[in-house]
């Protein structure tokens, strides 16, 4: 790695690189102005922690290898409350341990970004790729009424580009934002164009940029007290109402998705992350077999782009079936059903335990499901 990997200004020629997903996400965070990272080793995301330990001090930031994921997320809680642009990363069971902190961060309205490089579960599970933390990410693994904003990249380039956006959204909404990747995205290499470096906000600049942050009152303002407990229930309800206005705004403004081949599709897939890329190949295989298939790919998982499913009526009025392809026993599928509200039948194609779906497998299963739907339709 050269110094160019950190925070030198971007140059389109030199900033085109072949990078591993985990390292690329770490670099993108530094480029987005992140200067604080706290993490604990867990496979398959260790390259993020390793990269940050090496590169953050060079960029004038601070790195701590925490004693546990509990400590990592609570260090993020402290750094975010102190106004620092902060990152942690982990993988599924580690992110499970962080749920207390994520609930707490949402409650104190502290901005931060967390990367989950998903592996298979439940329990310690397996270190191979999975997408079975969908519920954990979108339904809130922690206690109480709150949400985490979740981005799901399908490529390393998209993960890098989403990182800058994640920090902007975290600051705007004063809420944790998650990049939900998987072991495949973390471990594979792809050519990328590295995003331009942004100037970090540190030291004395924090008080101006984030007047709510813990900086010391300098005998010039009232003290900033950041509370998590509420002793007056009515005041707490009022606070919760305010918090909720933010989430309603997020539901209006943040959902993102893209479609592929949706026009006149007979069959519509939904998939996120790396699985969406495998589905694209199946769509091409199915076309050769005479089945027109399309894809809706949510890029945000919370807020979920429910409106995407209205596109089916507009662009694929003859669609007979929607298939949710995912590396889980069926988690994304619940949001797909909420998006469709009974307008079309929904089926699942899934693998678990760290086993990836192959294009051939999806094609064959999709054909069988499609034929079955046709017969039942008659």
């Amino acid at each position: 790695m050269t110094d160019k990997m950190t925070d030198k200004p971007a140059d389109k020629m030199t900033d085109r690189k072949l990078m591993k997903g985990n390292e690329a996400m770490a670099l993108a965070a530094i480029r987005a102005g992140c200067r604080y990272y706290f993490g604990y080793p867990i496979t398959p995301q260790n390259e993020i922690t390793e990269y940050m330990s090496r590169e953050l001090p060079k960029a004038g930031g601070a790195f701590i290898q925490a004693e546990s994921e509990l400590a990592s997320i609570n260090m993020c809680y402290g750094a975010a409350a102190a106004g620092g642009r902060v990152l942690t990363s982990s993988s599924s069971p580690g992110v499970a341990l962080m749920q207390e902190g994520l609930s707490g961060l949402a409650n104190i309205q502290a901005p931060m970004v967390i990367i989950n490089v998903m592996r298979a579960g439940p329990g310690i599970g397996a270190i191979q790729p999975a997408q079975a933390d969908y519920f954990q990410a979108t339904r809130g693994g922690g206690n109480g009424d709150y949400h985490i904003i979740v981005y799901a990249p399908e490529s390393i380039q998209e993960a890098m580009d989403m990182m800058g956006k994640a920090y902007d959204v975290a600051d705007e909404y004063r809420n944790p934002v998650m990049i939900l990747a998987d072991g495949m995205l973390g471990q594979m290499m792809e050519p990328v164009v590295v995003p331009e470096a942004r100037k970090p906000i540190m030291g004395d600049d924090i008080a101006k940029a984030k007047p709510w942050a813990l900086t010391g009152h300098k005998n010039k303002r009232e003290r900033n007290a950041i509370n998590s407990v509420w002793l007056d229930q009515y005041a707490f309800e009022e606070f919760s109402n305010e918090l909720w206005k933010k989430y309603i705004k997020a539901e209006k403004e943040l959902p993102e998705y893209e479609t592929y081949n949706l026009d006149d599709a007979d069959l519509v897939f939904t998939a996120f992350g790396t699985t969406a890329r495998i589905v694209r190949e199946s769509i091409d295989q199915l076309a050769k077999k005479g089945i027109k298939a399309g894809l809706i790919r949510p890029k945000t998982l919370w807020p979920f782009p429910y409106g995407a499913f209205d596109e089916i009526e507009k662009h694929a009025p003859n669609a007979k079936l929607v298939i949710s392809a995912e590396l889980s026993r069926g988690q994304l599928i619940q949001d797909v059903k909420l998006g469709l509200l009974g307008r079309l039948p929904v089926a699942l194609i899934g693998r678990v335990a760290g086993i990836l779906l192959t294009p051939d497998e999806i094609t064959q299963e999709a054909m069988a499901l499609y034929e079955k739907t046709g017969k039942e339709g008659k």
Partner: protein
Amino acid sequence: MKTVFEMTPAMREMELHYCPGCTHGIAHRLIMEVLEESGRLGDTIGVSPVGCSIVAHRYMNVDMIEAAHGRAPAVASAIKRVHPGNLVFTYQGDGDLASIGTGEIVHAAHRGEKISTFFINNAIYGMTGGQMAPTTLIGQKATTAQEGRKVEDSGMPLRVAEMLATIDGAVYVERVALNSPSNVRAAKKAIARAFEVQEKGLGFAFVELLSSCPVNWGLPPVKALEWMDEAMIPYYPLKRFKCPEEVK
């Protein structure tokens, strides 16, 4: 007329919510007086725990944040990394620090974090209503040890200052008590040294303050202070375990 005692601007003018006879108020005031006298109120950041003192920020006139149960040392470690020029302290009880938060306190000490921790040891869970703490004495009654703590069920009480003193990163470790005027004066000096250690960037500083909890001990306030002399101090000796040359 000569003023011999007055409110300190370091404490906000509010009625404390603590029970009569509780020594949290004394501990709060000592920490704040030290900061005011050293002119550091404006650039100090405090972290309060889960427990009776969760809302310490209502009284202490510094920037503060509530941490999740036991996590204050992790929160404070990161605050210090973001603002290395500020003084950062945690204020924690024995359920918070000696039970659920043992990992965080041991590793903050182990990393030699340049923060100061004030540990209120009253040998019981206060806010939740008198359950046994790791620091509850043998034979001491608690709502979860109704016949008194037994060694065979719960082990011996945890001596946190002694434990942390074995860690290299913890450069200043002292145990004081808040049950008599002379002990209170000694406590204030220990608090001042803990901040001086941080100011000089020497490492992690830790002060254990033996405190009273008359309500959950089932004792009137004066008897509670006497019980500290009779039962607590013999098991938890008042001692400066470690102190760097620079602040002696």
